[in-house]
């Protein structure tokens, strides 16, 4: 039984690593992801600004403006009064999956900065501030906790966005 459980962990761990190393995005967990994209993908979210703070002609909100010339940005109205769609992508070409995976693991993937900037811009526009996690934490670091703590440190920089 123990061997079976171990084998299960190895398979699940391998799948998780594969998913992490391959480009994230539109594919579900059971679909094959393309090994190499021709150009960087757009990261898109929809914002429901409190007032007319964001229009297609507006200057970029601060967290996105901070990304400078490294990114292309598109702002357009969402259908059916759903707000404003904000789309951001890296201006430079695609990276190989291995390079991209290594940079993600090191926390130096520019796509991580794009995700964080998009999420923070949305929060600022909708609520006026960026929600912070509780601090000081009540938790202790253990060998079992460590992977989860690493994941939550990247909470806004990762995900499907």
């Amino acid at each position, binding site marked *: 039984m123990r061997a079976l459980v171990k084998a299960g962990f190895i398979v699940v761990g391998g799948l998780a690593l594969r998913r992490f190393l391959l480009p994230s995005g539109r594919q579900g967990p059971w679909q094959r992801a393309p090994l190499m994209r021709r150009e960087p993908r757009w990261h898109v979210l929809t914002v429901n600004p409190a007032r007319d703070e964001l229009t297609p002609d507006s200057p970029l909100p601060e967290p996105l403006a901070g990304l400078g010339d490294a990114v292309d940005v598109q702002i357009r109205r969402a259908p059916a009064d759903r707000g404003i769609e904000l789309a951001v992508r890296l201006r430079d070409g695609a990276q190989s999956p291995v390079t991209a995976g290594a940079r993600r693991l090191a926390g130096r993937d520019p796509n991580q900065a794009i995700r964080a900037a998009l999420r923070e811009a949305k929060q600022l526009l909708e*609520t006026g501030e960026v*929600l912070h996690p509780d601090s000081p934490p009540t938790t*202790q670091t253990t060998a079992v906790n460590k992977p989860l703590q690493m994941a939550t440190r990247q909470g806004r920089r990762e995900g499907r966005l």
Partner: protein
Amino acid sequence: MKALLWQGVNELSVDEVPDPTMRNEQDAIIRVRKTATCGSDLHLLGGYIPFMERGDVLGHEFLGEVVEVGPQVRKHKVGDRVVVCSFVSCGRCWYCQQQQYSLCDNGNTNPAITENIWGFAPGGCYGYSHALGGFAGSHAEYIRVPYADQGAFTVPDEVSDERALFASDAAPTGWMGADLGGVKAGDVVAVWGAGGVGQMAARAAVLLGAERVIIIDRFANRLQMAEKYLGVETLNYQTQDVGGELLERSGGRGPDVCIEAVGMESHSTGPQYLYDQVKQQLRLESDRPIAAREAIYHCRKGGSVFLLGVFANLVDKFPLGALMNKGLTLRGAQQHGHRYIPMLLDRMARGELVTEHLATHTMPLDEAPQGYNMFKNKIDGCVRAVFEPAR
């Protein structure tokens, strides 16, 4: 301050932790007066939701007194007696504006985890793992409440702490099941699970005009409680034929609305319980969906099934054939409490909605580990253990 901490699977302790601090201008700090156990906490306790860290504070159903407010808090002041919705929601994103508050885009500080598991991230929830934001829970002397103007509700003077406590989670969750399940006058409604949420769903169905409401469980004390306090019919699945009784009591049609208030650790009689236990323990499925299967099977053609019980991820032997061929509507949600809590407090003030009976065991926070043991193992007829940190 003192808090009840998750120390590992089925391990709890009461220990000293740092006091919460204001982290945002829309925060409030609440001194907790009462905080309740919830069946969904047992999934965390048992390790079925693997996103807990040693030292996490449990608890998401609570009531207390405001002791500090941020400069952007407009509706509350120090000294207010408030009940707080268990979900952290901003109130201003598109989902909150559609009154789908538990789907808030901004309430979860760790969206990556649930985006990867479920496709998109719901809002945050107090004391409900790092998948739902990692916010410290309410089984503590104090708690930080983000977006306090949205999530904290002043309790009317005529509603006692004992009654208002369950406006935090059990009552709005139950109400949502009946409301979004589409209960209307003349309906026959069946509710699986006579815990706090199931009882509140059954009462909501009565108040929304259902003709007959039948609540199903295996614990006689819970069924007696439902008959006495909610005015509903009962079925004990260990001693009665659930399918036959539901047909008989619905004119052979089957219930119009079936509400599942059990979740991922369902019990049942028969071999399917053993089957699901084995698969869950081997991690070949994360959840045991026995009550959900039954609700789908017994629901009338064209009826509605609402899942209120908490599910984590994957289930096995899910009856899609019955769902599709009978033309059922299946919905589920974490609670959109902000939408219902003011109305529920009004009903509590008028005496239409009573909840005090759910708190079968009230004790100091120091005794919380024993309280969870009683709650988990249904010792002494425990329906909900309630902790009072100041006692």
